[in-house]
């Protein structure tokens, strides 16, 4: 298969990160200001989306000059090409996007954009139907291995590299149609379809070990120090939400509120507020 190292497949998580940065962090407030007024969508959604799209494409055009070292910038531009589809994707979610925006959240907007970009990518390279079939076969091979491991009392295999090597050796034995022929090719299917690797949080968790391996930064010590410097309520929220220390088990929200003096939702909101503060304190 020739598309194994294709930007739209193997490097899709990186492209998606750049899309998130461009669409939300760089130009997101422009879109939301034009799209929502007092928590409700405006009537002229098309004009709001067009201005935002032009602004994003303008920045992309600057970055995607022929001298750009990374071809990914140019690959992002066609993803904004289907304007009708983009209007539809945002119009369908407009109420929810504006409601979330009213409480300072951009996740609904990002989910709508992410679905649009993924659909657009699939249309551009036309590979999705075949890849989905191949992924189902890979997933079956993975389940066979897990059953076999369990049978031998070895426990489930959580090591993605070991799993990819096993899948490839089975593919080589069985001649699976359209299947990848390299470890990078097999891994690209996991990155694309396996829920454990497709979201930014999971990517970060999965990649942390490699970063630790190559850096001498004692991040745990730094993090503990920064955590201790947080206001008490935010520190408690992080400790509870991430179970940094053993926590009591509550069967109802009322039990939780009685113990901590706030609802689980308030606790989650506080933890979410603490994360950027910790990042800033750690100079990341």
């Amino acid at each position, binding site marked *: 298969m020739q598309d194994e190292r294709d930007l739209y497949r193997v490097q899709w998580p990186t492209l998606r990160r750049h899309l998130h940065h461009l669409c939300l962090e760089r130009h997101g407030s422009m879109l939301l200001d034009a799209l929502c007024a007092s928590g409700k969508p405006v009537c002229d959604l098309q004009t709001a989306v067009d201005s935002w799209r032009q602004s994003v494409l303008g920045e992309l055009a600057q970055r995607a000059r022929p001298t750009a070292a990374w071809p990914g910038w140019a690959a992002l531009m066609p993803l904004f090409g289907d304007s009708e589809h983009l209007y539809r994707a945002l119009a369908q979610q407009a109420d929810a996007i504006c409601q979330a925006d009213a409480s300072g959240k951009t996740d609904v907007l990002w989910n709508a954009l992410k679905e649009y970009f993924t659909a657009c990518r699939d249309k551009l390279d036309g590979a999705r139907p075949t890849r989905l079939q191949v992924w189902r076969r890979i997933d079956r091979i993975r389940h066979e291995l897990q059953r076999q491991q369990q049978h031998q009392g070895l426990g489930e295999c959580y090591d993605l590299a070991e799993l*990819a*090597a*096993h899948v490839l050796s089975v593919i080589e034995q069985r001649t699976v149609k359209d299947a990848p022929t390299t470890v990078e090719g097999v891994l690209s299917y996991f990155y694309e379809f396996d829920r454990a690797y497709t979201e930014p*949080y999971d990517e970060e*968790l999965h990649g*942390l070990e490699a*970063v630790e391996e190559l850096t001498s930064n004692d991040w*745990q010590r730094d*993090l503990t120090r920064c955590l201790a410097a947080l206001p008490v309520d935010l520190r408690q929220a992080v400790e509870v939400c991430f*179970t940094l220390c053993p926590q009591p088990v509550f069967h109802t929200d009322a039990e939780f509120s009685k113990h901590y003096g706030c609802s689980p939702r308030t606790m989650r909101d506080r933890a979410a507020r603490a994360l950027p503060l910790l990042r800033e304190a750690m100079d990341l």
Partner: protein
Amino acid sequence: MNREAMQRLMAAILTEQPESADARMALDEARLRRALSGEEPLSKAEQRLLWTSPAARRHLSMLWDSQRAAQYLAWQRAGITPQIAYMAAADPVVQPVTIDTHPHFTIKLYPLDTDGKHWTIFLKLSDTAHQPLLTGVRLVDTGGLQWLAGPVDGDGELSADWTHREPPLQRLHRYELRVEPL
């Protein structure tokens, strides 16, 4: 604090990190491969880039996965399994222990004192396991504890002092050992 929980917290902190414009290009594939192979460690500035750029981390993670997968595949083709079947005696005496139940990995535990608190751990790879080596290796137990990690020397050997509170022989009552690509 619980290490896994700290990792989850760190991942959540990094998830919302903004991308720096061209950070990814500053650490290209060739550079990361040299660092992963131990040939040329990353400078302080390059290490910082990994912590501050999601794209650089992502790129590293993909290379790391593919290099480790290639190592597993090379071992698989050579008939080498990562599991080492061994169970320590229930009432161990403090004396050197040799685990040679695996045809390609031999582990030796040397006590450094008479009450078995301090140990040196030694791993030797057979030529068959050493030859296709693309990465360093680590010795871990099935309880998730890392015993040894690093590049093996020219003779296929790796050793280090035991740094954990629980003595290694006690761990061997409960857990089996595995050798994994690093």
